[in-house]
């Protein structure tokens, strides 16, 4: 998708006055975080599991080549194929080639963030193939032509009324006055339509939550079971996954699954957890004839051992979004690209460029809530700071901010001068503000005073008063 991260401020402003979005975000803020907390409280060993999950991924990152080769070997042994792709273009090409080979006209898809990252839908459409999203949320936003606003709940920004309206507009040939007032009605309608699509599809594309080196399996979790239909009904199953998704063993996969659902939605486990290994074997009652894994690097290999190494542990649970006070205020679309929230602010500058996504690492108070809840203990605030440092070093900071910062730093390094300048200013402001105690407006601080008063300083600075007292009582 085309990024709008450059206009982050405008995007955010629009989000702040979008009443439907505000309601949706309030609901989100009271939903997932509470459920996560309850799930964690029910599992005393949760903190230990986080450490274990983190250690598994650290080992994977240390030995990534080894595990990926092992995974490939096992996939091939079972009759599948692995396609190594350096970037989005290669991955898109690989998927398209498989679809064309299969003579595909429509493909079903279960939710995949990598699919969003490489914009596979656009690529298939441009080549005359119709992709159909089968995750309910993804399906809704596909109808609306919108990108996902959350990595696990793509349509979280929409109200039920908006969904009803979309269905009435997009689902032709159904009675105009049909009942669509209950979530159940919407679900049934989507289900009936998707059932046809599942049966008609020539190729099914899924993402993967994990790739298991020991067995050559891919693990996919959903709450709707749509991935299972996507991977078993069509003749060809294509998995698109980034390379850091690999884990050594099934045992390791289970450890990670135990923190994944709890962190994401507060469920003990997702409703459907499926391990798919290779194409259908003789005697299997279902399964595809072909099994392909499209493995995407897209800059990840280069992150190993660097400032952003730790982010490769991410399991895309969405906990950092659910708990982020900034995400909770503006929602996902304001971030302007595929990944939003804290994880998006860390990933996007690397994927679409710091020039393009420069706002994102700055649009955080560094409150640290994301790191507190991240099951993989990824130090997200530290990485936001890494981006800020690069921005500063590469002169990507707006000149006015840079000048203000430099001016302040010049004074902060010279205590005597600092004292003289601030002492005078505070006495003046203190005198002006004493009666009311706060300013409603202040030149150069219009942003602050638009929403809040600016409390007035007391007057003489602490340092001025302290040196006077010391003078009086040596």
């Amino acid at each position, binding site marked *: 998708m085309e990024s709008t991260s450059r206009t982050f401020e405008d995007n955010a402003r629009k989000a702040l006055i979008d009443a439907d979005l505000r309601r949706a975000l309030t609901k989100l803020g009271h939903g997932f975080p509470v459920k996560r907390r309850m799930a964690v409280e029910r599992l005393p060993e949760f903190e230990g599991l986080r450490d274990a999950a983190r250690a598994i991924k650290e080992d994977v990152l240390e030995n990534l080549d080894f595990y990926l080769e092992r995974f490939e070997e096992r996939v091939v042994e079972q009759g599948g194929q692995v396609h190594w792709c350096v970037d989005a273009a290669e991955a898109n090409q690989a998927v398209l080639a498989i679809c064309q080979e299969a003579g595909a006209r429509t493909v079903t898809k279960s939710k995949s963030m990598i699919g969003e990252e490489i914009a596979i839908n656009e690529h298939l459409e441009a080549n005359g193939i119709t992709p159909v999203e089968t995750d309910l949320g993804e399906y809704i936003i596909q109808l609306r032509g919108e990108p996902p606003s959350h990595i696990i709940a793509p349509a979280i920004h929409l109200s039920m009324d908006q969904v009803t309206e979309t269905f009435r507009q997009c689902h032709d040939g159904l009675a105009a006055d049909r009942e669509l007032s209950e979530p159940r009605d919407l679900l049934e309608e989507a289900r009936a339509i998707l059932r046809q699509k599942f049966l008609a599809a020539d190729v099914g594309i899924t993402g993967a939550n994990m790739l298991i080196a020991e067995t050559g399996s891919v693990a996919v979790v959903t709450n709707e079971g749509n991935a299972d239909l996507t991977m078993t009904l069509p003749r060809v199953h294509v998995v698109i996954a980034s390379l850091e998704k690999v884990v050594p063993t099934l045992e390791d996969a289970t450890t990670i699954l135990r923190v994944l659902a709890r962190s994401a939605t507060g469920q003990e486990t997702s409703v459907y957890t499926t391990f798919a290994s290779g194409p259908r074997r003789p005697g299997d009652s279902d399964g595809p004839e072909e099994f392909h894994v499209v493995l995407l690097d897209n800059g990840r290999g280069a992150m190993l051992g660097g400032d952003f190494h730790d982010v490769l542990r991410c399991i895309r649970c969405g906990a950092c979004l659910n708990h982020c006070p900034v995400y909770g205020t503006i929602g996902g679309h304001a971030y302007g690209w595929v990944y939003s929230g804290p994880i998006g602010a860390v990933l996007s500058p690397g994927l679409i460029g710091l020039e393009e996504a420069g706002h994102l690492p700055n649009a955080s108070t560094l409150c640290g809530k994301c790191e507190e809840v991240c099951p993989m203990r990824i130090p997200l605030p530290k990485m936001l700071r890494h981006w800020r440092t690069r921005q500063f070093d590469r002169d990507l900071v707006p000149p006015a901010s840079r000048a203000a910062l430099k001016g302040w730093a010049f004074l*902060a390094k010279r205590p005597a001068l600092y004292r003289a300048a601030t002492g005078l200013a505070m006495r003046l402001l203190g005198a002006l503000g004493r009666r009311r105690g706060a300013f409603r407006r202040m030149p150069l601080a219009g942003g602050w005073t638009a929403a*809040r008063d600016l409390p007035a300083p007391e007057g003489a600075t602490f340092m001025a008063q302290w040196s006077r007292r010391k003078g009086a009582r040596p």
Partner: protein
Amino acid sequence: MAGQSPHVGLFVTCLVDLMRPSVGFAAVKLLQAAGCAVTVPAAQTCCGQPAYNSGDDEDARAIARRVIAAFEGFDYVVAPSGSCAGTIKVHYPRLFAGDTDMAKRAEDLARRTHELTSFLNDVLQVTDSKAEYRAKVTYHDTCSGLRELAVKTAPRALLGGVKGVELAESGGAETCCGFGGTFCVKYPDISGHMVDAKADDVIASGADVLLGGDLGCLLNIAGRLKRRGAAVGVRHVAEVLAGMTGGPAIGEGEG
């Protein structure tokens, strides 16, 4: 050090120095009452966080070097702020990661540095107070103090020793107020919405006064409460603990 009073260097913090010196005097009073000898090194200005959080590591390092030099030799360094203490304790050593000699000095300072309430309660084991403050208060856990320094129980334990204080916890006590240092300047609209949600939460607690340990956040929340015309006062926790609540609350006028 047995029998001797610990020598504390007070890191005043730039916001307390400029905006609310009375918090600095409250800190001095509390430290002295706990048996410390307090010195305020004249060579301090700010911990350098605005530069550090803006990616200007060079200036952040230059400022950190000065702070490290100014606070050498004290048994402890105490700041009435979780955010500034966190910068010194957690981030200074990171800033000098490539420079063995400076890293050692930064580590040494980090070890000696504490946020005020945590120092009083966790290090000096202070629990009682001679202060009295008849009010229903709610406490805002400021982000850096809470998540970088684990300041959570200390201020509450200390408030428990103040006669007359009734603590009414709010549901969002640990939620960021939207201050974020330079964040509120760069993204004032988003910050404004965040502090409005914080104000809702404070008002819903039914408290007369909001307390916290970081002046930046308190200025932000007080500013929003005042703009909304809410009758909730805002003070730094040190003022209450030191029994120095005679003057106007943050953002309140004299007349």
